[in-house]
Structure formats: structure tokens, C-alpha cells
């Protein structure tokens, strides 16, 4: 890795800023642009429409990576959340400026797969154990950091962005949809406190 187009200015790991990543063209268009984007993202995901930006092969690769970052376990993972739909829509909008770099990153990522598994064409051809072993070698790359970020944003963002289908991301955390109001007690310890239990347990 380390190619210039995949510099940290474009790809971030950890707690970076989406705007730095995507150049934020929708921001310049203003909120109505976001609303329109969100509506179309939902419609595409729910109706199983064709991808707008990604080709089927590259979509399969991005989805395969996302599905190992947040795998399907006893609860839904990135695949069930529709993260790939978030990615597709975002590559046409809020991550538009990153599409070219992402494709270059994917090509380099895939060349590593081919080198490690002669005969295997692409990452999604590998079994899950092989995929995990390969991803462990990619953890420090900018490309992996970018896909991790996009996976998390697609899994936990509002479903109007195309992912987080049926709010499965929020349900994983214990959030039942997006409530707008709560009242005390909120948790175990403040409930104890409200009952007058001594706070030195």
C-alpha cells in the first residue's frame, strides 16, 4: 500500500472526520440534497434495485470485507444491514471524491489476495477463515481503515442513508429505534440511587 492516492488525507482510520474523507459535496448543496439522497438510498435498498455506482464484482468485494468487519453472528451483520447499499449510494454522493481512490485501493488489496492464494481470483472467493487471516495483514492500511469507517457508518447511521436496515445496528447496541425522549431512571445505578440506596456499594 502507501500509494499516493490512498493518503491519510483521503482515508481515515479511527475517529476521523467524514467531511475530510468525502469532500462533502452534499454540504455545499445543503440539507435538501441530503434529504433527496437519503430518500433514494432507502428506496434502492428496499426494492433491491441495481447498484448505481458500483459494479457487481466490486460490490461483492466491498460487501465481503464489510461482512468480516461486522460479521453475521447470532445477530445481523453488515450484510443484513445493507451496508453495501450505503456504500453504493455514498460513492455517488457523500463519498464521491473517494471513489477513484477506493477502486485503486481495492485493486491493490486484491493483488495481495492473488499473491497469497494463487488460483483464488478475489477476496470474496476465500472462505471466512482465509478472509480473516488476510484482513489481519491489512489492518494498518489506509484502504482497510476506509472500508472499516464506511462499514460502521453504514451499519450505525440513520437507515435513510441506505444501511442499518430495520435499525439492526442500533438494536445490536440495545437501542430500540431512535427515541427522542427519555425519563429517569435511565440505568441500573441511578435507579438504585433514586431508591435511596447508599452510594458506596
Amino acid at each position, binding site marked *: 500500500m502507501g500509494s499516493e492516492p490512498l*493518503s*491519510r*488525507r*483521503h482515508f*481515515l482510520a*479511527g*475517529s*476521523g*472526520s*467524514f*467531511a*475530510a474523507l*468525502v*469532500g*462533502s459535496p*452534499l*454540504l*455545499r448543496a445543503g*440539507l435538501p440534497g*441530503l434529504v433527496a439522497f437519503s430518500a433514494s438510498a432507502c428506496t434502492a435498498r428496499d426494492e433491491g434495485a441495481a447498484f448505481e455506482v458500483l459494479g457487481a464484482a466490486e460490490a461483492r468485494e466491498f460487501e465481503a470485507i464489510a461482512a*468480516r*468487519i*461486522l*460479521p453475521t*453472528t447470532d*445477530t445481523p*451483520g453488515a450484510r443484513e444491514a445493507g451496508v453495501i447499499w450505503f456504500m453504493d449510494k455514498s460513492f455517488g454522493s*457523500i463519498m464521491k471524491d473517494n471513489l477513484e481512490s477506493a477502486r485503486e485501493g481495492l485493486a491493490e488489496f486484491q493483488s495481495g489476495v492473488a499473491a497469497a492464494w494463487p488460483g483464488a481470483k478475489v477476496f470474496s472467493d476465500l472462505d471466512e477463515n482465509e478472509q*480473516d487471516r488476510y*484482513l489481519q495483514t491489512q489492518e494498518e492500511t489506509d484502504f482497510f481503515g476506509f472500508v472499516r469507517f464506511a462499514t*460502521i*457508518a453504514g*451499519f*450505525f*447511521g*440513520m437507515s435513510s*442513508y441506505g444501511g442499518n436496515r430495520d435499525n439492526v*445496528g*442500533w438494536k*445490536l*447496541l*440495545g*437501542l430500540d429505534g*431512535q*427515541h*427522542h*425522549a*427519555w*425519563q*429517569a431512571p*435511565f*440505568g*441500573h*445505578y*441511578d435507579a*438504585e*440511587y433514586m431508591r435511596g440506596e447508599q*452510594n*458506596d*456499594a
Partner: protein
Amino acid sequence: MTPENQVRFDPASTVDFVIVGSGSAGGILAKELSTAGFDVVVLEQGPFRTAADFTHDEIAVAFLHELLGGGPEIHQQTFRDDESQVAVVPGRVQPAEYVQGVGGSSVHFTGNFWRFRDVDFRERSLLGPIDGTTFADWPIDYAELEPYYTRVDWEIGVSGSPGPFDPPRSKPFPMPPMPVKSSGVLLERGANKLGLHAQPAPLAILSQPFNDRPPCINCGYCMGFGCEVGAKSSTLAAMIPLALASGHCEIRPECAVFRLETGANGKIGNVVYYDPDGKETSQKARAVVLAANGVETPRLLLNSASPRYPDGLANSSGFVGRNLMLNAHALANGVFEHTLNDYKGVQVTRIIHDFYDSDPARGFYGGGGLDARPLFSATPIFFALAGTPTDGPSWGAGYKQTLAHNFSRQMSILCSTTSLALDRNNITIDPTHKDKWGRPSLRMTYKDHPDDLAMAGFLLDKAMELFDAAGAEKAWAYPIGGTTGGAHLLGTCRMGDDPQTSVVDRYHRSHDISNLFICDGSSFVTSGRGQPTMTIMALAFRAAEHIARAAKANEV
């Protein structure tokens, strides 16, 4: 959306005041001066949002920087550690973070409203000089400012109850504190075991209906988000409606000021800005009040350099932009056996001020406070990106399991400290970068004083002790790194009696230009202990009183 029925002034006519900025200080100054009968035009570079415009959309707000008017690529702020480096535009978050919009950063703040104490105003006299710094006393003291802190409590709206170390107050809090959360209970539990004193957090968030505004509904989206019900005490919620109702205040949103023009008499006569269509226009005024924040105010003064004022306006001292203070921070996270559900409710409900005063026995200068809050575990994306244990997996089934287990059981202790004033820490004009309007960008140069970092480390050790005492199953601390930006933008046009070492006098009037007043975080002489907005607002109430008096006496 700008109210259609607000008063309109002709830019070619001369209004009494132009106020640049509508945030924590500007919103109060607008209300105070307009309700006193002066004709006021407020120029705000961001839009006029209302409570109905605010959402829980984490992608738009936290990652697309909707309220900030965009990210680094838009504003092109640059950063460097010291003057030997070429400053660059950071790739992730911009160095100085502030809301562009009516209400300014009071719209997205967390609402921690700590008063300064007497020590904050005269610590230089109490402790003596510190080599290599511009550590100084304020020209005013706590007693002078106390009535205005009380006005903030009662006119802006602050909930709370007194703590054991609080400075004297002339009136009680107008409403009780917000209900304690599990994070607050656990901080208090740890404090009790360690012999420390956790106290209810004073917050600029309403716990009861107040001044025709509704109370908080505990939605949990305070930090970084706008309040959808108007319970957060921003100037947008508390002051702007009163200013508009006066019939003497016009708010002009999306108007980006880029130059202050002086006349033959050396006074400012014209404030020049780009209107919403990008067209250059100007407004004449008897006097100008800069309340654009601690980085935009010095930037505008420096960008207004002219043959008469080659080093920028109001800068005969050379102190414009100097002595930037950001407050240092440290952070630890803890996970507990039972659910906290700290994503519900306000961020902070308990604080610890046992270490507020500087203690020579520690071997370094500094003081600070600790607070309990969800921080990462307030919102899903932020938590998943950065909130999980640093020694655990960051992807895969184990990572997913950690997310599911920890989100409802995790909290943070945030440590906030003093920053020493240093000449080397400053705001200057970047020689190459420009923002989206074409205005030369601000360049931040900043490196913490070693004592600031030592104090952060001292408090971080206390945070870990608190987690242990409170019974955390797991706790981890983040390494203390140098500060590379912040939201507390302080000290860059400091107030003082000596024109050689300060930019404004004790009444916020420029030493150099008699019809220029400056009131925002830039007026600070010391940084306080990490929660400056209460003091910015108190200064604004006090400044407005003096500015109005001077204007009525025709002394501007």
C-alpha cells in the same frame, strides 16, 4: 430561516452598532443593546437555523460537519506546532471548531456552565510569574463579574445546585439540577470512597419550564448537536428572540465579514462583508462590536490591515492573535457490570472540583476538573469508531460482541485543565490558504506548556483511581498527546489596563480604536479550568452595560 418580520436597516445608513457574530457573546450583546433602544445589525456568517432544523443525524452533524458549515476542506484552517513548521490543513478535523450559524457554538455546546472563581482572575499575583509565559492577572475580579454570572443563570437559564467549592453567589440557581445519571452516580461512588467531593453539574440546560421555554426531554443529543426543543440554553433559544422582538435588531445570516474599514479619524466606519449571494457589500455603523470568537475575531483584525494599521487593527500591542489557550484534556473510559444507558439524558450530571486550585506540592502549575459523561457511548457511530477498549479487537465477531456489551455499560471521565498563556501559541493569517469565500485562512500555532500536560496527567491518574473505586470491570486511559485544536478559543485579544500588553481595556474597548469593542473568548487573560462559556456570557452582559452607557453618553 430569517424571520420575515424583523426590522430591516439600509446598509447605506448608519446604525448604532454592527455586531460581528451571534454566538455566546454576540447573541447577548445583540439582545442587550437592541432592547436598550439602539439600532443593531448582527452579521453572522452561518445560516439562521431554528430548533426544527436540528436532528439526531450523526452522519450529517458529526461527520459531515453540518453545523460547522463544513470540514477542513471548506475552511482551510491550518495548523502547526511551532513557527519553524509550514502549517498544513489537517485531514480529519479542523483546528478551531465552532458553529457557523445564529447562536454560534452555544447551539452545539454540551452546556457545562462552571463559573470561574476568584483564583482564576488573580492567580498571577497569588503564585508569581512563570518563566516563558505571559501569565497575568485579569483587570477585573470575581466580585466584579458575579452579578453578571447571576444574570446568565437567570436570563439564559442554568440548572444546578451549589457545590462545596463553589464561589459565592448572590442568588440561588433558578432551577434544580438535571436528574443524576448512572455515570454521575458512579463518579460520586468513586469520589466518596476516595474522600473527594462529587457535586451536581451546573448546566445550561433547563430542568424545568423556564422563561417560556420547555425543559429537557433527555434525548441525549446535546454534545455537538442542536437542541430540538430549545431546552439547551443557547443564545439562539434564550436571547435572539428577545433581540428580534425589540424591533431594533436585524440579524443578517450567511453574511461573511472580511474587512473592517477605518476612516480619516482612525475609527471604524464600515464593515465589509460577502452577502448570501457572495456579493461584496458593507454596513455603516457608529460603533462595531466584535464577537466572532477567539479565532475569527483576531483573524478579522489581522485581515483588516491597512497602511494606517499595517499590523492589523487594534494591534499596537502586537497581542492580537497571541496567547491562544485551548484547555488541555485527558480521558479515561470504564465499563461496569450493569447497564448505565448513558446515551439517555444530558452528558454530565456530576463533576469533581477538588483539584481546581493549583498546588505547588504537585511540582507544576495548574488546576482542573473531572466530569462523568458518556462521551463515546452517546452516539452509535462515534462509539463504534473510537469508543471500544484500545487493547481489544477493532473488527470481527469479538469486536461486534464488545460493541453489544459495552455500549450500554460504558462511561468516560473527562479531565479538563488550565492552559498557560504563551506568546508562541497564536492565531495568524495563513500565507497561502483561503476559505470558501476567498478570505485568507486562519493559521493556528500551538504546543501545550509542559505544566498543562502534567496537570492533565495528574487528573488522568485520578480518573483511573475513581474507576477502580467505583467498581469498574475494566478501565483504560488514552495517552496524553499534545493539543492540536479545540473548541475553547481563548485569550487572543486579552483585556488589560496596559495598552502595551493587552488589546482591550477592562470594558472591552480597543485601546487603539475608540469605536471598536471586542467581547468573546478572545478577551480572556487566563483559561479557567476547562469550561469557558459561562464566563464568555457573563462578560457579554457586563460589556453590553458599559457599551450602552458609553453610547448614550456619545462616547463611542
